[in-house]
């Protein structure tokens, strides 16, 4: 009889399990992502009388806002151009040449992705600022009385910092496609009589175009939605839509004005994201089976002008990529006093002080503790919900699967400032009055991290042979036990990657956080920004180094466990 009872019960439980697996994440996203965004858009598109486009049209009639809009598009376009100009040659070098440290450089292209934007902004100020390393060096070298390069607090500074971030994206996309491009196409063209440059122009470039366009589109979206870099490097003169939303909401406490701007931004970003997705789909279609491509050594053979050009390019990009990080590191350990730079640990002592600092309106130690605990909590939430979604997205085919996928991956294309604003508006009044509570920040971080968890877990699930689950079922294991005892242990590397990504995203996040933060809820990136804004570069550097070290540690963990998984 017990047999019969459990037989009737099992399908029910099974069903309940499946429903929870998908319902919980959807409820979470619905409550904390779609409901707040809907509220934001509704307030952007309505007035006392109902639906109206008036708030949006008013943005275009305001000459200052028109200027902000134009500047945002301008800096995003120029940043994209700069990223391509830097990323394309780098992709060429990585594909066509062999040189010592190539693998190292290849894996380094992921670094900018992991670096908190505010620390990069700090690095750029320390290197390219009026009082930065580059200007001081040039002044000493040529005996100048004033800084010769006014890169910072200008369009160039913003574009350069965005290139730092996005050129590696272009490189990754293009190099991946280039490595898969069969050399037979280029060889056919050469056998037909085409000189090298014609081969590149007529064959290679068009065939790389889907990858290049995808990379460039992503660079554009990221530059368009970039917040910390513009906030820190733009100074008072340069403002983008993101910065303007922040200013209106937090400094002028003008929620409805900010909401109108955010609505417009969401619409524009949505268009670009859809465009990017189409390009990316085309790019995926063009990926081919890899035929090994011949590579040339950079070190052997005659050293012509071509080679010197390559060395110069490598040196210049190394300066761009390494100098800001190195500057932050050096600055955190040094103090300049009467034209003498001395080694010091003062900055580190300062950031571990538990006492209140009026500069950042909190205690620095508190911000470290906050960041670590928010990141831990976000990691748990994002990993649980993201894995549940990934299991549903991979294992079964059902009507509306692609719609579900779009719904859960949407946070990837959202501006974090707009998300912060939407949550802020929702949390200040019932039914979700979470304003000022740490959970508000953890919710924002979890939402931003869920797509990354899905991206990390899904490939692991897809590689898993369905035979394994079937074998477990055939041996009598229930679906829940199969998931727990067979599937999850086998996708452990994917889970770990997802967890580390979630942790890193949370701890580096500043844009949504700065919208939701309260005096007791300061995080490390916001502390870095406040130190920076009050020109406490030493303390900002020390906090940045700590932040980068924590993230680096997390990524080393992935690397190590990935190796272990491969060996085991």
């Amino acid at each position, binding site marked *: 009889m017990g047999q019969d009872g459990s037989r009737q019960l099992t399908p029910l439980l099974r069903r309940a399990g499946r429903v929870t697996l998908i319902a919980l994440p959807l409820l979470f996203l619905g409550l904390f992502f779609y409901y707040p965004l809907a509220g934001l858009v509704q307030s952007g598109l309505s007035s006392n009388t109902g639906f109206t486009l008036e708030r949006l049209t008013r943005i275009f009639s305001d000459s200052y806002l028109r200027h902000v809009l134009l500047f945002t598009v301008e800096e995003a376009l120029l940043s994209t151009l700069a990223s391509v100009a830097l990323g394309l040659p780098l992709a060429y070098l990585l594909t066509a040449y062999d040189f010592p440290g190539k693998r190292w450089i290849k894996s380094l292209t992921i670094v900018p992705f992991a670096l908190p934007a505010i620390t990069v902004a700090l690095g750029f100020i320390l290197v390219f600022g009026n009082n930065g390393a580059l200007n001081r060096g040039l002044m000493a070298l040529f005996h100048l009385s004033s800084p010769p390069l006014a890169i910072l607090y200008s369009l160039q500074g913003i574009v350069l910092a965005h290139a730092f971030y996005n050129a590696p994206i272009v490189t990754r996309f293009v190099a991946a496609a280039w490595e898969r491009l069969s050399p037979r196409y280029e060889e*056919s063209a*050469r*056998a*037909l*009589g085409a000189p090298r440059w014609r081969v590149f122009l007529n064959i290679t470039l068009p065939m790389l175009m889907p990858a290049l366009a995808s990379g460039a589109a992503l660079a554009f979206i990221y530059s368009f939605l970039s917040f910390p870099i513009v906030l820190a490097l733009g100074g008072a003169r340069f403002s983008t839509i993101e910065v303007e939303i922040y200013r209106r909401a937090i400094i002028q406490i003008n929620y409805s004005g900010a909401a109108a701007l955010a609505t417009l931004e969401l619409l524009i970003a949505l268009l670009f994201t859809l465009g990017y997705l189409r390009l990316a789909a085309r790019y995926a279609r063009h990926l081919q089976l890899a035929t090994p491509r011949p590579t040339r050594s950079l070190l052997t053979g005659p050293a012509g002008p071509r080679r010197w050009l390559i060395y110069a390019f490598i040196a210049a990009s190394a300066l761009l990529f390494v100098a800001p990080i190195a500057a932050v590191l050096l600055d955190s350990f040094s103090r300049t006093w009467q034209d003498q730079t001395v080694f010091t640990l003062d900055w580190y002592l300062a950031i571990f002080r538990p006492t209140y600092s009026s500069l950042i309106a909190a205690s620095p130690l508190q911000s470290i503790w906050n960041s670590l605990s928010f990141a831990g909590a976000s990691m748990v939430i994002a990993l649980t919900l993201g894995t549940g979604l990934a299991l549903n997205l991979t294992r079964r085919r059902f009507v509306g699967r692609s719609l579900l996928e779009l719904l859960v991956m949407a946070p990837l294309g959202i501006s974090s400032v707009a998300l912060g604003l939407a949550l802020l508006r929702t949390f200040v009044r019932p039914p979700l009055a979470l304003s000022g509570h740490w959970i508000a920040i953890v919710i924002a971080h979890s939402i931003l991290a869920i797509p990354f968890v899905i991206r990390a877990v899904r490939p692991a699930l897809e590689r898993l042979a369905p035979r394994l689950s079937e074998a477990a079922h055939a041996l009598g294991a229930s679906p829940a036990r199969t998931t727990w005892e067979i599937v999850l242990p086998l996708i452990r590397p994917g889970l770990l990657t997802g967890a580390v990504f979630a942790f890193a995203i949370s701890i580096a996040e500043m844009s949504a956080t700065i919208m939701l933060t309260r005096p007791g809820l300061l995080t490390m990136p916001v502390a870095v920004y406040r130190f920076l804004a009050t020109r406490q570069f030493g303390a900002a550097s020390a906090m940045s180094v700590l932040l980068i070290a924590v993230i680096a540690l997390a990524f080393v963990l992935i690397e190590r466990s990935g190796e272990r998984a491969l060996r085991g």
Partner: protein
Amino acid sequence: MSCIELQDLYKRFGSVQAVAGVSLAVREGELLALVGPSGCGKTTLLRLIAGFERPDSGEILFGGRSILGQEPQQRRVGIVFQDYALFPHMSVRENIAYGLKFVPLTRRERVARVAQLLHLMGLSGLERRAPEELSAGQQQRVALARALAPRPRILLLDEPLSALDAQLRETLRLEIKRLQGELGVTTVHVTHDQEEALAIADRVAVMQAGRLEQLSSPQELYHRPQTEFVARFIGRGNLLPGTVVQSEPDQLIVRLEGATRTLVQVSTGDATSALPPVGAAVRLLLRPERISLGDDRANRLECQVESLEFLGEISRLHLRCGAQELIAQLPSGATEHWQQHIGRRITLSFDPQDVWPLPPSS
């Protein structure tokens, strides 16, 4: 007159000696097949001719002049790869016309040349299609048309048939042969399929481990292989080990090894290579289709019938003479008759001109 001459070419990739001292001459207007197992260096040889690889040493002459200093785009070679490498972002017409951009022709001449090739290859009406909209056979024709358009000095075919199914492969290889004959374009055709090489080539070069084993006409290669490798690689054959007991200018007498102690008469005809002396160990190549299942020929062997394989057009009889296993070929109509002989002893025979002596492999 030789169109292309390779002189003592060497090429090494890391620890692999891909080409080890190959010399050969391709005659004007001929179709030369380069055949061998995978990894034998045949594709490397092709890439050396095209200029995609540089030899470590040796010389390549086009019409008597060295072309080693020339880039691939200066050599005027036409090449068709295994996967065709049709430019996916160009139409059929654009693919065929691409090489004409680098030849001094007027616009009209170019249009006319493309139209001529479309017609020649039976591609008329497909000129606007994208390569991915074509069947495998059509893609291959486009690849040929593209390679031929700029009138290359030599056409290089790198296993262009190996990606196709068996039936299409046979149709297209006949087409290649017909086209090559009509156009008279000097062609080097790389393949690992010995049957394909025999079917279409004027001469066949067999390669193994980077070396040229033999270069001769298909018939010569089949009936008078110079090495055991060639004998085994080209067609099927029975190799009977033995010792020369008598050596005369036009014939050998060989005592077969093993229990049989049979003497075999070998007619060497007008063979140019040196005949093995008395006492030398040799292997005799006897093709399955040259075995007569009866005692009507000069050389006779006693055998036991082991098994029979029915293959449709033909059947194969597996025989044993002492330790030696033999295969004989039957017309399939005789299958049922021989089915009854399994396990019995029979006498087979063959003519002296149907066996060929090979030096034993070292």
